[in-house]
């Protein structure tokens, strides 16, 4: 989702019922709750929460360098007695968990709510995790809304619980909450007095002796929260006339259950941790059998089984991915020994895949085109648009796991190389924001341990993949106002990369890029090549005069296609037999000049110089401003 998509929410509502995504609804409630500090690092599907919070008045909002820092900022504000908020995607909590696992001991003064958005179904993530585990691990309550209205309402309740029990509270969302728009009744902001920071080393300084004294308090809090769960209105029992199966469910899975089995009794858990075992036992007694429907892992199921309750769950339902009526109906029919329900079926038609691509004129195109020319190289990758370099036509990224991991993995690939790979070049590719998030430490490790790694730092001044958010490398804050901008060349030198080994290169100057890469990969010490052209989707990017192809001059070599620019289209293909007897496939091309922004990357590989500026041919072609809006005339 792009940044523009969010601005649809007005700072203050004119009408009290608004069409809002789960993310917008949470942001609204954050504002209403009187929150004073909100922090996050962008990540799908959580990004829009902070983007939207930043549009409200009277809330300090920031993009933090990573999720751990964002949680620490929010916690600091909560220590000071302010209500504070922090949002992240599921993998963000892996990074932030170090802070979480001890702030659960100190507890909070002002309310602290942490929204964690699980990418169930992996629409834009490297893994699928169930963040409800953090509730059990950190002994903090987990609230699980089922739609936008609940996302709003539960956020308000979460702040109340946080202050009443002096604990951080997790609001667990999934993609199907964050990115579903529904109607939401909203309220207005209520400002709250801020108590201020009270010095208390026994509470805020977690040395072993103090932490040890806080442990029993944490377990006592969990006991009290369990009692709260037994009476909480967040947990709702819906009676049903068909008692053959009673459902225990939470989050968006509830909607699928309710839609699939309108007559069944349902126990909807809004407070998904701790569980109200007594109420669940009473519910179980009223149903022939219980089925737990949860996304994604069997947490509720396991706890109910540990309580001695007989339940079905992941034995009949999938362990990963989103649930739906289409999955639930046959599973329950099978459980009941009924004939499978007749689901509507329209046969699918086979169509080519359409993987995400890099944009027209994206500066990463030049980088990956160049990397694809290198031989005997292993490329350690990272998380961002440039992860797409693994795909066609570049095939120039060999590994990617987590934020900043390109650095450590590259050092490990270097130190762990086989004898046969003695001359192998190790290249790491990382974007500006990912480098600042968690890559700096890895580079320091490469330098300190004298690794032989060439780092490509792709500075495009934006968190591109999530919609071009700002970061300390962009020179703008979350509101787009001027902010101090990190100097990457000075930064990497300060980390110990030698001055001669640091290069700033224009990503569109292919010969320079290739030469620099070739030279640096030959030198057995850490080097950093920084590319510094902006993301084409941010305002720093300026489109140039578009190009076109002179038909008569195009020889069909297809070299330009290897750049991977989506504005280059094949007009016809031919197979010819060369004098040597070798068969060659030719692909003649044209450039979608309305989409082309004149980066010129395709000019370099074009042997016959068939690519020229549009006005060279005096062709009247109108330039479309938005490069992302491609089209093709029939």
């Amino acid at each position, binding site marked *: *989702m*792009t940044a523009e*998509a969010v601005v*649809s929410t007005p700072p203050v509502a004119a009408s009290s019922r608004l*069409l809002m995504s789960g993310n917008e609804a949470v942001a609204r409630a954050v504002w209403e709750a009187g929150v004073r500090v909100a922090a996050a690092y962008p990540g*799908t599907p959580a990004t829009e929460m902070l983007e939207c919070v930043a549009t409200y008045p009277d809330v300090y909002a920031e993009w933090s360098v990573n999720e751990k820092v964002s949680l620490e900022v929010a916690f600091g504000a909560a220590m000071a007695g302010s209500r504070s908020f922090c949002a992240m995607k599921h993998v963000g909590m892996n990074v932030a968990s170090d802070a979480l696992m001890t702030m659960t001991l100190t507890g909070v003064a002002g309310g602290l709510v942490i929204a964690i958005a699980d990418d169930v179904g992996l*629409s834009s993530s490297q893994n699928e995790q169930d963040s409800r585990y953090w509730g059990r691990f950190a002994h903090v309550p987990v609230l699980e809304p089922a*739609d936008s209205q609940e996302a709003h309402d539960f956020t308000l309740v979460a702040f109340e619980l946080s202050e009443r029990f002096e604990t951080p509270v997790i609001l667990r969302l999934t993609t*199907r909450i964050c*990115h*579903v*728009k*529904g*109607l939401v009744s909203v309220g207005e902001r209520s400002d709250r007095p801020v108590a201020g920071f009270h010095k208390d080393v026994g509470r805020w300084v977690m040395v072993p002796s103090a932490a040890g004294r806080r442990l029993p308090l944490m377990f006592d809090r969990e006991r009290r929260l369990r009692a709260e769960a037994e009476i909480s209105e967040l947990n709702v029992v819906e009676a049903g006339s068909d008692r053959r199966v009673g459902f225990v469910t939470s989050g*968006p899975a509830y*909607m*699928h259950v*309710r*839609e699939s089995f*309108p007559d069944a009794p349902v126990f909807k858990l809004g407070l998904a941790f701790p569980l109200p075992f007594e109420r669940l036992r009473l519910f179980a007694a009223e149903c022939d059998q219980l089925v737990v429907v949860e996304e994604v892992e069997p947490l509720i199921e396991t706890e109910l089984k540990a309580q001695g309750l007989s339940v079905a769950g992941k034995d009949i339902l999938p362990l990963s991915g989103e649930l*739906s*009526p*289409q999955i639930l109906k046959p599973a329950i029919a099978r459980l009941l020994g009924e004939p499978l329900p007749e*689901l*509507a*079926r*329209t*046969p*699918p*038609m086979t*169509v*080519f*895949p*359409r*993987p*995400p*691509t890099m*944009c027209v004129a994206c500066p990463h195109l030049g980088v990956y085109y160049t990397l694809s020319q290198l031989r005997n190289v292993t490329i350690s990758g990272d998380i961002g648009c440039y992860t*797409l370099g693994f795909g*066609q*036509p570049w095939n120039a990224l060999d590994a990617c796991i987590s934020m900043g991991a390109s650095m450590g993995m590259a050092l490990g690939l270097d130190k762990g190389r086989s004898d046969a790979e003695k001359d192998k070049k190790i290249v790491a590719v990382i974007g500006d924001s990912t480098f600042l998030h968690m890559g700096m430490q890895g580079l320091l490790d490469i330098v300190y341990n004298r690794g032989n790694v060439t780092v490509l730092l792709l500075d495009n001044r934006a968190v591109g*993949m999530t*919609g071009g958010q700002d970061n300390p490398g962009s020179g703008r804050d979350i509101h787009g106002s001027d902010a101090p901008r990190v100097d990457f060349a000075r930064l990497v030198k300060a980390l110990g990369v030698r001055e001669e080994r640091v290069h700033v290169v224009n990503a569109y100057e292919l010969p320079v890029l290739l030469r620099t890469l070739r030279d640096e990969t030959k030198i057995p010490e850490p080097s950093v090549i920084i590319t510094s052209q902006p993301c084409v989707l941010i305002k720093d990017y300026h489109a140039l005069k578009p190009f076109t192809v002179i038909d008569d001059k195009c020889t069909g070599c297809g070299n330009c*296609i290897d750049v991977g620019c*989506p504005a280059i*289209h*094949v007009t016809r*293909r031919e197979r010819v037999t060369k004098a040597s007897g070798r068969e060659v*496939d030719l*692909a003649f091309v044209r450039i979608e000049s*309305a989409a082309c922004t004149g980066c010129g990357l395709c000019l370099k590989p074009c042997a016959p110089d068939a690519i020229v500026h549009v006005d060279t041919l005096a062709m009247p072609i109108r330039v*479309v401003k*938005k490069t*992302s*809006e*491609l*089209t*093709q*005339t*029939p």
Partner: protein
Amino acid sequence: MSEAGRFDTTNILVVGTGGQGVMTATEILAEAAIALGHDAKKTEVAGMAQRGGVVSSHLRFGAKVLSPQITPGSADVLLGFEAAEAMRWRHMLRAGGLVLMNTGRLVPPVVELGLYDYPDDPVGQMRAAGTRVFSFDASAIAQELGDIRLGNTVMLGAIADHLPFPAEVLERCILKRFARKKAEVIELNRQAFAAGRAAAEQAARTAAEAG
């Protein structure tokens, strides 16, 4: 009646590629449904923040909407912003459902590289498979009006007479979006909407004549 069974829900699936305005168009459809007092939910499957990839946006509206996703085989109308994308999502359509589609093509790099083929005749293939299709070149209509970005208003015009409410409600919701823009922009969108309606009507006639 839809897959939702007792819940009388209208299911509209809008599909295309990242950057075409699919999500915005669906949101405007949702606003129109809400303006008439319906409950509505709108959701997307948009992997990797789109980047030219596949986007499918689900809209469900009615008295009360529970599950936000349209289950396969239950979409009443499939609004295809791109020819091959309409084909890709045909399995979502209910028996007797309607496809309204742009014949304009967006050929992705994997096809340009020769790794895959673009289907020869998406409209013909869908009809041969028994699907009711009204097709028209929305991209060309938008370009004739002077801006390819009008494409999604053309598409909304096309669906306007195939909704359980008057076309004028949808038109008002579209124009409201441009309320702060220049009169010229509003007028262009009005024309695009009308052109889309006319194109769909013409396509319906052609389809009827073809039998």
